[in-house]
């Protein structure tokens, strides 16, 4: 298959399937609470509805208010295109693309924070400050997890790191990456996505003043980021590279659904952590990945 076609199909798959994950999480939360909950395709309907609305601007905002969410979305799409999917590998792979992956995620967060500060409102600035202060610890964790995978597999490219046989530190890595998934995607116990109190918001506060298509782009980007982290978690743990293509695709889909169900269960069964206790849990996730790195490193020597 020529590269352009493969890339288009790959990216189309990511864009189309990303909004399913928040739907699964909300359905699980509703079932645990004894309700029927919103339909699984709710985010698709929301995105279609938002696309038809007009943009309402803050008087203090510059054009960066609309450009920044688009830039963040493009960064997330490129980061998703870099990831290998099961045994299909990655269409664009080169040495050191793991570093580009981390920086693209950082760029997406930077653009979202910039758009938040651009509105000139206090709530957005507060949300942006909280988000980036958690990002210090969660990005360190992601980098350590990628280092552990690189030490385990001996490769500096994402396509070589994932899909390897499970090492001794796999359980530690899985625990650390799951906590990072919850932190980066603003899930309980780090942030409650259903809160309506602005002073308690972190990620939702950053998007308070967006409306219409930019908000749709931000919501889709958030769903894409959740899918990216779920794929990273599943591929770091399961040795998908050794299965046949169909079995690998099935295992990938099943495990991602399992991660979404797990996230929904954690959201339903746990309370949100007080702000002063969040650095401790992020440091714990960092130490999980650090010990996975040391196990991978020491296991070689």
């Amino acid at each position, binding site marked *: 298959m020529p590269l352009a076609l493969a890339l288009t199909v790959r990216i189309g798959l990511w864009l189309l399937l990303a909004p399913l994950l928040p739907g699964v999480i909300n359905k699980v939360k509703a079932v645990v609470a004894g309700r029927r909950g919103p339909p699984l395709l709710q985010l698709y309907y929301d995105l279609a509805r938002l696309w038809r609305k007009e943009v309402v601007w803050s008087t203090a905002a510059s054009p960066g208010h609309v450009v920044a969410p688009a830039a963040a979305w493009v960064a997330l799409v490129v980061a998703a295109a870099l990831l290998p999917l099961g045994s299909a590998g990655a269409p664009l792979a080169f040495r050191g693309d793991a570093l580009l992956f981390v920086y693209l995620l950082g760029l997406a967060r930077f653009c979202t924070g910039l758009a938040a500060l651009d509105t000139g409102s206090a709530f957005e600035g507060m949300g942006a400050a909280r988000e980036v202060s958690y990002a210090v610890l969660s990005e360190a964790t992601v980098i350590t997890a990628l280092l552990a995978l690189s030490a385990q597999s001996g490769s500096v490219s994402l396509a070589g790191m994932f899909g390897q046989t499970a090492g001794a530190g796999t359980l530690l890595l899985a625990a650390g990456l799951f906590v990072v998934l919850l932190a980066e995607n603003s899930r309980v116990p780090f942030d409650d996505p259903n809160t309506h109190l602005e002073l308690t918001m972190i990620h939702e506060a950053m998007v308070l003043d967006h409306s219409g298509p930019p908000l749709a782009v931000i919501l889709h980007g958030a769903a894409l980021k959740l899918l990216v982290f779920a794929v990273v978690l599943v591929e770091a743990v399961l040795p998908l590279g050794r299965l046949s293509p169909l079995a690998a695709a099935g295992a990938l889909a099943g495990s991602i659904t399992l991660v979404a169900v797990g996230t929904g269960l954690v959201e339903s069964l746990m309370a949100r952590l007080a702000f002063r206790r969040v*650095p*401790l849990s992020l*440091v*714990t996730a960092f*130490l999980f990945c*650090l010990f996975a790195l*040391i196990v991978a490193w*020491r296991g070689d020597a």
Partner: protein
Amino acid sequence: MTDWMNLLIGFAMGLNLLALASSRLPSIIRTAAVQGIVIGILPLLIEPELRALLLLVAIATVVIKGFVIPALLFRALRAANIDREVQPLLGFTISLLLGAGASIGAVVLGRLLPMRPEDAEVLLVPGALATVVCGFLLLIGRAKAITQVCGYLMLENGIYLFGLLLLGSVPLLVEAGILLDVTVAIFVIGVVMDHIQREFDSLDTRKLTVLRE
């Protein structure tokens, strides 16, 4: 066998960090209890044949460290009516990072020390050093007397791990000595904590630093 021992010792080292990060006193007591049980069954994995004395000491260690001493500490906890360490002298995050650094340093140090080949691949020496340092961090970094007692218990667990190196040549001397040591110490500390609680109506050891009529 080495893999199972490394798994158990690795689990004990993880429990160290769990106790350092925890602010709730019941969970710190339970962590020290589980750690005592885990290292109590280690001699059964080291020795290839099962002697009666070995089994007796292992069962005594598990019962005393895992059930009797935690029961005494829970009774003291109920009498003192507290369940949380509110303001430690050394913060939770910093003590967790120091404990993790000590665990990593212990593993590095364990590879530099000259040991017999069969001891070098087991995590006994690194686990012992890490547990001693983490127990010590708990002992000096916290203000509540019960946490300090749990730190002391973890310290003794670390020394016990070190003593397991001598299991082949001087069987169970160190283990039995530590068991006696811990039992007597806990009884004495229990009496002392009762007196502190009656006098100051609190187990915060910072109140002991003030001379008062």
